[in-house]
């Protein structure tokens, strides 16, 4: 029992009271100067400024509590509160019990007209004993230990409910509080927004510093103007577009990483103020302009006004992004088409190779090599085909069928590289090439084309693409060393790349040296990516130099000429003669003329004719040889006839001679009669 005046209620009261259950406090009159400036507006609850929790804290912590006395009640558990009657009349509508070390809500008797109740900074664990205060408008239970919202079902007039900094895990039992204007649940352990859909007068909802991971279930809050969700773990937001009055939304320090997670915000017409700072999304480069583009109704972002300039920039950037996306889409479409075409070409190539293999397997009577396909029949090559490629291309078959037959080859020009896929692509060299494009091309890549077909096109390549210095071959069926001879007719090659895939020639030990040897006049720099060294050149010469020598100097003249053709033979003859005269000395003239000719001519006889041409030539040869054979046969017949006659003559001549002599002797035995006979013959002749 503490009579008398109090200067500081809180402190004294704290000293004098036992923070337990047996507390008796008696109120005394309040001095004038300690009058509290607290106003409770009964009509429209419009609070000054922005009603944030820390403002409320400030309001209340500076305030001094009522002079109250808690009286020991008859009930052992709850203290009973009794106001002095004076106070009742003065401040009959508010009661402050902050920092009273209360662990339970005391029973408050005779205060049915109470409008404001303040239990801040206590240790209350349950809301109880206030059911009778049915006129209560303002209930402050900030900073207690409340674990569950309960005991409020009779407080139908309640407009402000402050339950910040408690231990509430779930929003519940608010069904009857339909007049609620401000609901403050910050600093609790709430994981889900629920049971608030009936609060159609609610203007401020504070759920900061809780454990929310997502925001939804906000329907029905038609008056909600401000929603504070700072310091949660929110990853996505929904239903905000169903809040017709929402103006301010604070999402700072959450877990939002993409604008899609908060896409409903774009549909909200009322939002003017939003914060995203402290979210992963705020670190992205596209953050600001994406937000501004999608939420044109915004006035402030992250507590800063949005200027016109910013908006303009945002729309410009957004347009650029859109274009970029469209471009990349186009690019990827093109790439896809290219890939499909190349796959198509590859399939045709495989089919071709299979056919060729089957044909050669049939030709060879060698029974040692087993046939490659079990179903090996002469013309039916289609049957083995789907089995092998079905698994791989099953997804593509439908797409490929839609590709027309034209798409069996692909020509691609990419800066300095011309890529040709499929034999049909070779026709592109017939096209008119602009001088600029043709001049830029330094690399030509051939894929899925038979090398023999490429050989036929090389002269065109020489003319049309004069700067092509690097040739690449992949899946071109390069199988023989002599095929490289065909490359000698080009103007120049700096680099040669022969991909092992589809080119069996790469498996040979000597192929690089042969290339270097045959194409030595090009002074190649790289083969398959590795630099050509002086030693390589020497080795090449050492290996094949004699071949060149034999091929040039030992070939009979007529053969040389027939191989080389008119244009070169004169030069060749000249060179051979000079070379023959001065062996072993590096001849200046020789070098000059060599450079003029452009090729080391002792190799010039090493040519390559494609199989078709060669077979044609062989046919030709057969014809001619037949003729020659006939001609020689005639000659032989003649000769043998003559020989026979000669031999016959040899045999018969002695006999004939003897007869001649005998006849003559017989005739001239009688000189006189012989003389008469001769005279007679002469006169007869006349």
């Amino acid at each position, binding site marked *: 029992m503490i009579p008398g005046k109090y200067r500081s209620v809180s402190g004294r009261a704290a000293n004098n009271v036992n923070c337990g259950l047996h507390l008796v406090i008696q109120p005394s009159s309040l001095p004038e100067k300690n009058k509290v400036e607290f106003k409770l507006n009964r009509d429209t609850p419009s609070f000054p400024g922005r009603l944030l929790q820390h403002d409320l804290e400030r309001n209340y912590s500076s305030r001094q509590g009522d002079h109250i006395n808690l009286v020991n009640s008859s009930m052992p558990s709850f203290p009973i509160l009794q106001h002095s009657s004076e106070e009742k009349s003065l401040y009959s509508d508010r009661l402050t019990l902050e920092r009273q070390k209360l662990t339970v809500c005391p029973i408050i008797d005779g205060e049915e007209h109470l409008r404001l109740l303040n239990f801040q900074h206590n240790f209350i664990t349950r809301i109880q004993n206030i059911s009778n205060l049915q006129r209560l408008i303002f209930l402050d239970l900030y900073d207690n230990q409340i674990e569950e919202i309960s005991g409020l079902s009779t407080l139908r007039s309640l407009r402000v409910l402050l339950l910040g900094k408690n231990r509430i895990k779930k929003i519940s039992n608010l069904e009857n509080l339909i007049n609620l204007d401000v609901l403050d649940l910050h600093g609790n352990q709430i994981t889900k927004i629920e049971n608030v859909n009936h609060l159609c007068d609610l203007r401020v909802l504070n759920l900061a510093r809780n454990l929310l991971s997502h925001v939804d279930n906000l329907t029905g809050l038609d008056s909600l103007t401000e929603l504070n969700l700072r310091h949660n773990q929110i990853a996505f937001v929904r239903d905000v577009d169903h809040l017709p009055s929402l103006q301010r939304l604070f999402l700072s320090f959450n877990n939002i990483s993409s604008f899609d997670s908060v896409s409903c915000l774009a549909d909200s017409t009322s939002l003017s103020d939003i914060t995203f700072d402290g979210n992963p999304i705020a670190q992205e480069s596209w953050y600001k302009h994406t937000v501004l583009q999608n939420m044109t109704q915004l006035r402030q972002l992250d507590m800063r006004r949005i200027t016109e300039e910013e908006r303009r920039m945002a729309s410009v950037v957004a347009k650029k992004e859109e274009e970029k996306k469209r471009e990349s889409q186009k690019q990827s479409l093109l790439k896809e088409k290219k890939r499909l075409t190349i796959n198509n070409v590859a399939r045709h190539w495989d089919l071709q190779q299979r056919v060729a293999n089957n044909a050669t397997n049939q030709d*060879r009577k*060698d029974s040692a090599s087993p046939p490659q396909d079990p179903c090996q029949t002469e013309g039916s090559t289609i049957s083995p085909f789907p089995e092998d490629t079905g698994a791989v291309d099953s997804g593509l078959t439908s797409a490929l069928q839609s590709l027309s037959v034209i798409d069996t080859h692909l020509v691609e020009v990419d800066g300095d590289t011309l890529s040709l896929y499929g034999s049909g692509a070779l026709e592109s060299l017939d096209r008119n090439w602009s001088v600029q494009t043709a001049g830029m091309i330094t690399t030509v890549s051939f894929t899925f084309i038979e090398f023999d077909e490429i050989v036929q096109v090389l002269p065109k390549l020489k003319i049309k693409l004069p700067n092509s210095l690097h040739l690449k071959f992949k899946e071109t069926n390069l199988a*023989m*060393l*002599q095929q490289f001879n065909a490359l000698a007719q080009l103007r120049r090659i700096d680099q040669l790349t022969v991909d092992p895939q589809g080119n*069996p*020639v790469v*498996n*040979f*030990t*000597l192929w690089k040296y042969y290339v270097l040897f045959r194409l*030595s006049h090009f*002074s190649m720099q790289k083969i398959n990516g*590795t*630099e050509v*060294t*002086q*030693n*390589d*050149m*020497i*080795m090449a*010469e*050492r*290996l094949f*130099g*004699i*071949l*060149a*020598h*034999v*091929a040039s100097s*030992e*070939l*009979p*003249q*007529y*053969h040389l*000429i*027939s*191989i080389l053709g008119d244009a070169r033979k004169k030069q060749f003859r000249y060179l051979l003669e000079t070379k023959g005269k001065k*062996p*072993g000395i*590096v001849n200046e003239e020789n070098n000059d003329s060599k450079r003029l000719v452009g090729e080391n001519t*002792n190799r010039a*006889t*090493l040519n390559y*004719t494609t199989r078709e041409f*060669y077979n044609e030539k*062989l046919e030709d*040869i057969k014809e*001619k*040889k037949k*003729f*020659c*054979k006939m001609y*020689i046969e005639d*000659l*032989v017949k003649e000769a*043998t006839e003559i020989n026979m006659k000669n031999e016959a003559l040899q045999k018969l001549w002695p006999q004939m001679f003897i007869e001649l002599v005998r006849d003559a002797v017989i005739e001239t035995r009688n000189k006189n009669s012989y003389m008469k006979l001769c005279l007679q013959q002469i006169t007869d002749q006349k």
Partner: protein
Amino acid sequence: MLSPERLAQPDYEYLAQRHVLTYMEDAVYQLLENREDISQYGIARFFMDYFNSVCQGTHILFREFSFIQATPHNRASFLRAFWRCFRTVGKNGDLLTMREYHCLLQLLCPDFPLELTQKAARIVLMDDAMDCLMSFSDFLFAFQIQFYYSEFLDSVAAIYQDLLSGKNPNTVIVPTSSSGQYRQRPALGEAGVPEGVEASLFYQCLENLCDRHKYSCPPLALVKEILNGVQRLTFYGFLGTLSKHPGINQALGALPDKADLMQDPAMDEELERLLAQVPGLVPAVTATPELGCPPSRTPPRVGSPWRPLHHPRKVDTESDGSTEETDESET
């Protein structure tokens, strides 16, 4: 020249035996092919050139296979040409696959058939692991007998198959050998039967073959020598021994003996001359070779050219002199 035996032979037979007609026909064919050019410098000179090249063995270069195969002289010339051109490959010590040798053959004859090369490879590899690498000399000698005696070898193969299956192709046989045949048949049916055929029987069949047929056969004395040494033999065993026998080589006369296979002083000189002309190479490194120097002279060191080709080549941008050191440190 005017021996009675020669005169006794009818004309056609004489001509055919010496393949005179083949060369005449070919000469006329060449004339036909190049008549414009040849007419410029005279037909007589052409014929001189032609038959000179036939004598030297250069007439078969880059010719079609049917011509190369036509006469034994052509075949021998081709073998010799192949040896001369690619001796350097063998000297370098590379081991190549059958396909690669075939490529080299095709460099000289574009339509050379693969079967012949395959058969030659089988002789070397004893019909086993056809992708194996072969040395130049092994391949060359096997190829020699395969190519030069191809018809003979085909017949021998047929005979061998017959003998293996128990049939005896000889209809006229001495009674003793028929009893040998009967003894052979049950022997074949046993498990663990020795491979191949009996040498003496085989020899008799070969003897008959050589008598009957006109195409060239290896000297029977040599064959007898080989077959006398063994009791039984397999087909490829026989061929392998045949190919390695130096007597065959000498009988053919196309290739030098195995010991001298890598030697060809004239060509080596020519090679040095060519190497001197490789662009960028300092001429002073190679001294002008003199005629008559001993054939065992090693080629002058130009940098370190004899790197083993099996190892991946390292990019060598240093000057020639320093590569010698690196070469030694590598080995």
